[in-house]
């Protein structure tokens, strides 16, 4: 009798039901050859206290001008790897403390050059309860496939402008990825007066810029005395040379 009661109590106790996922790697940069099939493992681990159901789905992405990720249906990007990719298994349960290894295979077709990318999201399935908000989480594992030696790093500053801001100067720098691989941009803007640097402003730290995308970097400087100044942007995007641009502005 006591055992039966204990069993009922145990069964009716709420499950921990937390979610905790670990994904490794969350970025994959894989050199390949057109027509060759590559297979890469991704490990998904359940760090929570309850069994979790995980679904893998593909999503294309790019970087918006504001530097944020934008996600698209798989295959929508001009440089999508999704149409050439398969994931197995696509759905699985993971016990607490256990992991599932997922095999990701892709074959970039012949005549493709440069880099192709997509994301695999590993997402937990939320538990639906009437009258409540259920939660799920998803972690991205990015895949970049670079075909042979066709990768070309390229970037250019296509705009430097200074906009008045209350009590300050806002410098806007446009950077465009003109290569065929993703790049990370670091850089600064120097405010100069008569050739002398009066202020240095960081505008980018490891800012991701995907193939074919453009970002607008911003930095706000201090209030300046009246006069004519130059804003000089210097960006390092990992290419053989730095890129930059400048503009002249007047503070009244």
């Amino acid at each position, binding site marked *: 009798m006591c055992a039966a009661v204990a069993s009922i109590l145990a069964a009716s106790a709420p499950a921990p039901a937390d979610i905790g996922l670990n994904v490794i790697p969350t970025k994959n940069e894989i050199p390949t050859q057109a027509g060759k099939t590559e297979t890469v493992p991704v490990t998904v681990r359940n760090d929570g206290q309850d069994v979790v159901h995980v679904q893998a789905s593909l999503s294309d992405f790019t970087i918006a001008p504001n530097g944020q990720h934008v996600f698209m249906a*798989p295959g929508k990007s001009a440089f999508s790897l999704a149409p050439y990719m398969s994931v197995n298994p696509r759905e699985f349960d993971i016990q607490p403390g256990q992991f599932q290894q997922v095999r990701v295979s892709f074959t970039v077709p012949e005549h493709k050059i440069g880099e192709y990318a997509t994301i695999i999201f590993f997402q937990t399935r939320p538990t639906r309860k009437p009258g409540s*908000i259920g939660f799920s989480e*998803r972690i991205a594992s990015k895949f970049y496939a670079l075909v042979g030696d066709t990768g070309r790093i390229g970037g250019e500053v296509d705009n430097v402008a200074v906009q008045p801001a209350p009590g300050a100067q806002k410098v806007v720098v446009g950077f465009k990825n003109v290569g065929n691989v993703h790049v990370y941009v670091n850089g600064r803007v120097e405010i100069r007066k008569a050739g002398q640097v009066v202020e240095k402003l960081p505008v980018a730290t490891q800012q991701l810029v995907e193939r074919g995308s453009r970002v607008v970097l911003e930095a706000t400087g201090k209030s300046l005395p009246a006069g004519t100044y130059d804003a000089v942007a210097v960006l390092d995007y990992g290419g053989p040379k730095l890129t930059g641009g400048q503009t002249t502005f007047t503070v009244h």
Partner: protein
Amino acid sequence: MKRILAIAATAIAAGTMVLPASAASTFSYGSVKLQWNVPLTATLNVHTNYNAAGAFGGAANTLFGSAAGVCTSQASGETDLNMNYGTLAVNPAAVVSCTYKNAVAMQLTTNAKYQVNEYLDTTAEVPAGTGFCAYPNGLTFGGVGTAAATQSVRAADPGVATFTAGTISACAAGGSYVPIASGTVSNTGAAPTQPNAVYTGEYLAGGTGLNVIGSATPPSGVVWAGEDLQLNLDKNAPATSGATSAFMTIQLVNN
């Protein structure tokens, strides 16, 4: 075996013998190339109705209504990852809101640049006239997060949101709108299925949602983000058939 050893010994001896006297103090250096690769990795844990430790806080919750009687805290029935606002009293002439204190805690560990976002899945789950605002606890949305779980100090509802054409156009001070994903749900099966398609687009978000925390550099340790979550109902919001539920996704993307 003996023969091999003998040959090796002879070779060593011969090598020693042929060394010129002038080279006796000259050393020959070799180098070993050490190469390794550390992959990017990330772990994200999520709890609702969180306590001081960032874990699930128990069966009772704390709700603040924008006016008396709008909502009432639940004395029991809460489970982790399912937040219950109970029954809300809609007002035909004014927006009402109900704020869930210590609603969501996120715990992140990663060795790379990171960004954590949140969004609600599909408009079907959140009808017109209904919307959510999030209020950060001890952090700034879009910032790097906190070193430990931080609980809310809120003692009242922060004030209702502003609706425009059935959608929240502005939250009360300190709040941020939680967007609704504009993508599609392609796999809604109640039971696990194995999609036949080459790929699926489950809960695909058109944008990134609300940027909760992020940094261009990896964190030195565990990073936390906590928030209160406010449910807003536009004036005379339509009644729902039975109890309505919604899904919120917490998304992590490394650089």
